């Protein structure tokens, strides 16, 4: 379970609390604020460990269980730290029937990690997505914010090379 995810050092420093306070203050008094606060916090820290969730819950006056519920419900949120680059293999239907599955298998094999995992050198995290909406170019792989089209297992090495 993700809840057991360890944080390497104490992430809740004075500095990070200030960042969180700033984010929260922007949404103060606004309805439906939890989602955007969590989205911005994750953009800032890369992931949402329990410490950060608890801090947000306290500051926003929301039960920690509710924050945890939202974080674990949506795919976008993660409680484990990610690698420097995130590879997202699209497994939308178009990508799937055009060979997306073979790409994910090759990546799992080459990187030695499972879906959701990060390589020990923190270079890559591997994820699947449910359609990037680039179906006309299937199969596609997104590395960070770049979409690579018409992927084949044999093209992967070259595609990933620039991402150090």
């Amino acid at each position, binding site marked *: 379970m993700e809840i057991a995810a360890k944080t390497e050092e104490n992430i809740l420093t004075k500095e990070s609390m200030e960042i969180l306070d700033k984010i929260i203050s922007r949404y103060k008094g606004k309805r439906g604020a939890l989602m955007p606060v969590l989205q911005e916090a994750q953009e800032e820290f890369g992931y949402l460990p329990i410490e950060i969730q608890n801090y947000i819950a306290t500051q926003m006056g929301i039960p920690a269980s509710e924050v945890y519920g939202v974080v674990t419900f949506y795919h976008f949120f993660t409680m484990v730290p990610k690698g420097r680059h995130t590879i997202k293999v699209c497994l939308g239907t178009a990508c799937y*029937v055009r060979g997306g599955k073979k790409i994910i298998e090759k990546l799992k094999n080459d990187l030695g990690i499972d879906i959701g995992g990060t390589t020990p050198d923190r270079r890559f995290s591997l994820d699947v997505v449910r359609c990037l909406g*680039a179906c*006309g170019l299937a199969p596609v792989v997104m590395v960070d914010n770049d979409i690579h089209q018409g992927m084949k297992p044999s093209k992967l090495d070259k595609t990933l090379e620039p991402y150090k």
Partner: protein
Amino acid sequence: MSKFLSKQDLEEYRKKIINSRDPNKIIIALCGDTGCQAYGANKIADAFRKEIKAKNLQDRVELKITGCHGFCERGPLIVIYPKKIFYQKVSEKDVSEIISESVVNDNVIERLLYVHPETKEPIVKEDEVPFYNRQQKIISGMNSVIDPTNIDDYIAIGGYSALEKALFDMDPDSIIEEVKKANLRGRGGGGFPTGVKWESCKNAPGDIHYVICNADEGDPGAYMDRSLLEGNPHSVLEGMMIGAYAIGSSEGYVYVRNEYPLAVENVNIAIKQAREYGLLGENILGTDFSFDIKVTRGGGAFVCGESTALMASIEGLWGEPRAKHIHTVVSGLYNKPTNLNNVETWANVPLIINKGADWYSKIGTENSKGTKIFSLVGKVNNTGLVEVPMGITLREIIFDIGGGVPNGKKFKAVQTGGPSGGCIPEEYLDTPVDFDRLTELGSMMGSGGMIVMDESTCMVDVARYFLNFLKDESCGKCTTCREGIKRMYEILTDITEGRGKEGDIELLEELGWVVANASLCGLGQTAPNPVLSTIRYFRDEYEAHIKEKRCPAKVCKALIRYEIDQEKCTGCGRCRINCPVEAISGEKKKPHIIDQEKCIKCGICHEVCKFDAVNII
């Protein structure tokens, strides 16, 4: 920019923009949609800017970065106006030639033209390309002529004139009447009559009414809503404004997928510009109508495309659907009357108001009016977005527009409706496409994904794929959905891995019935469709897996193996070098062999072999 305070302000501004534009100026419209960006459109744009500046042609030519032109397979695409010269698969290297030949001179570069696949004749104009000439692009057509980040472009083509008409020449009741008369049905999948929904929401008691644009386009294989929000966001906003006026709403939301960064960006820009022009905010165009729109980003949960789950998500909660004993038009977002329509539905509204219900309802079939945008993808030659009148046949879409199945393979099925839909086999290809006919076939319209599958697609594997998706996306509230889908998935996994047994098909049908009938929301109610429709039309494939332990499409790994044809193999060594597990051995220039113990069946050898010597058995 000062705000428009009246209808005249907007009209005068429109005239001013049109007059300030030179109709003879050459416009290079480069598709800058997510798809063409993946092909490198941004670099091409930079090259054009540099070239135009270097040659000092700013007065003669303008580069316009537009939304999706539709023909994604052939990207990056450009169209040169006013002659509508259509260039495809353009690269950075072509830029200076395009400028010197097709801008400075009046020549066409034949190399960049689309060649008719049958006559082999090059085609110069966009609207003569077979992919386009069968379409009727009344909603998506403006994508290729406007810069979505510039509200002036939208105003110049008549944008916001429908809002004017609604505010000054119509009243809320007559607007609703017009939408009802046009028989616009929800493009998100269900096909509920939009006008009826608006009327119920308007009549619902409450001090505040909300309107929502559902841009949580979750169906895998569908991207028409993304392309509309990216390519023509103002048309969606204008539709929402008209709807809000008719319903009596002053607050709207666009709930958009976080996976669509460009759509989020463009809709935010559009809202900001509309506010600056006074088209959103207090007293719009000097009337009593006040309305504003907020953007909420989703969190990547498929179930949030369901209306009640979406509203919970806007409220900052996890997106769990609720029972709709009381409809959301009566009690929706924050328990207030709420009208939710999807992106494409909203984009239809300005057109209906401007051109009238009589014009609109001439397009389409008796019960499904207007056009529908489909994303035609998968195993089809011309992948991309197509907008066609309702009632066109599947065959026309897939073969005439889509150009059929690539690599000489045989068509097997077309999947519509996303994970809620089903697979339709060849014998029904002449079915006219509309809401009701697709439902009759055990599938549904859905939001418009149309995924073509050929003989090398395994239908059992496809059914398993969808259930895997739905098992992860079920919110977990209803036992039948949470557990039922998982059990069906396990049975399908067994079948695809060679452990299928007699009675599995019947058990799937029984479970499917329970899941469909005992789940609360649309996700669970339609979840068995991909399985039931493939059993209905491709039962023999299921039986081959179960009884003969054979995958006819040669997809299911446990039931296939890769072997090298000793006659055909030239010993070039390509497969050996590329094999990730070193399972292939052999001497140079002598036939190679695969060690079946080591082989992980990744298929790379099959992909890289130039002599067609790797067989799947």
